[in-house]
């Protein structure tokens, strides 16, 4: 289920780890701190989608509208 209350400290540590250890995209603590409110906002909107049943929906990985 959606968890919209993201713990700031845990999020900061997690993002730092993802960027440094997984993405190979280390950024300074200042930059990460500056981005954190936006990251929280984006993740909150993304986690809201967990409420929706997408089990029958294939991703639009190649997006082409149907005429």
């Amino acid at each position, binding site marked *: 289920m959606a968890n919209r209350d993201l713990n700031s400290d845990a999020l900061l540590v*997690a*993002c730092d780890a*993802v*960027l440094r250890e997984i*993405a190979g*995209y280390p*950024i300074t603590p200042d*930059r*990460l701190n*500056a*981005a954190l409110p*936006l*990251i929280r906002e*984006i993740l909150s*909107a*993304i*986690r*809201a*989608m*967990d*409420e*929706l049943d*997408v089990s029958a*929906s*294939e*991703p*639009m*990985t190649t*997006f*082409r*509208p*149907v*005429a």
Partner: protein
Amino acid sequence: MSGALPPSIREARDGIRSGALSAVELMEACLDAADRLDKKLNAFVTRVDREILLQQAADVERQSKAGIELGPLAGIPVAIKDIYFTSDLPTTASSKVLAGHRTNEDATTVTKLRQSGALIVGKVQTHEFAYGPTTVNEFAGPSRNPWNPDHVPGGSSGGSAIAVATGMCLAATGSDTGGSIRHPSAFCGITGLKPTYGLVSRRGILSLSWSLDHAGPMTRTVDDAAFMLHVMAGFDALDPGSIEVPIPDYVEGVGQAPVSLRVGIPREHFLDLVDGEVRKAFDASLRALESFGWRIEEVSIPNLRYALGAELAIISAEASSYHREMMRVRADDVSSDIRKELDSGMVLLATDYLLGQRVRRIIIEEFRAAFQKVDVLATPTIPIPAPRIDQKDVHIAGQAISALNAIWRNTYPVNLTGSPALCIPCGFTEGGLPISLQLIGHNFDELTLLQAGHRFQLETDWHSRMPPVA
């Protein structure tokens, strides 16, 4: 021609061909408007030299007098958003990172515009890298709304809208990933068309988000948009998203208004948070549509509340992927608001990106179901009038909401679906700021949208007003 309404593209085309209108004088009027207003409004990044443009306009006149067949936009002054490649002008995306950057080639659409005889007057400001709805930039400075320079012009195609609204050109190009053609068109009181994804080539246009980016025209009137779309549309094998479909004659067809039209009003999302003056203008617009004999009915798109998550997952991941290498080496030269966006997209999970794409399919299916019942959907383009440049929050029905979130609330869902969307002026606030109506159509049925919008403009005069600054 200070403050005078510029001719429509149709009037200019016919006038130049008959000799009743001088292409040179038309160009001089546009250049004079830019000379007079650009410093105040910050529309242009780069302008083409005056003498070159007057020479090009004189060439058009000579060709016309010599009986040489002219292209459909011969002699029409057109501005190009500064993310479209141009062989003769830098393409900077209004960013310090790309200052002076030259591509030495034209975007496919720029090639088409040149071949049509359009005269490119310069490159116009965008929110940096097209990643924002205001065109208030740290590096390039704030662009300003011609109806009130203390307010934002909207973005990201802000320079395009300012230039069209003030007569610095007769048309401009824009791009739209979450509403970037429609926001500035709405805030500056002009017409904007986001065509169906795949109808207009994206080749040679800097990307923000590959699967959400659309290129399209921004003009004073719907009739003008038909001229621009007619030139810009068409299959391009060099654009992986391009789709080969028959292209109708928009220029000839735009005047044939549908006798009957079913207009759907979405029950969810689009009218949930709307400023009072915007709602009043929207309701008046619906009454006008009804007076044409068109039927208004409610439709349901039940899962729209998940569209924001899908849009953010997709745009954030795709934009950060596109700019990844640049951010490794030039992040310090990127404006702070854009740097935050691009850093944020780096921490998203691949599974969340795909969740967004799965939700996107559900929303597309719901739009398709709605379009079984109606021909177009109508919504306010933006729920609020243009906020002040320094304004962070707006209040709607006593509820505080971030201005940035309010601006794109009614536009981003249509980037997910790829549907065509036309925005047209439909009123003004008491403070003199434009209000806009959005019409959303079936995929690749731009013609019906243009016909409906043109019919609206035949009966209203919101599109025929010049900003006081002009």
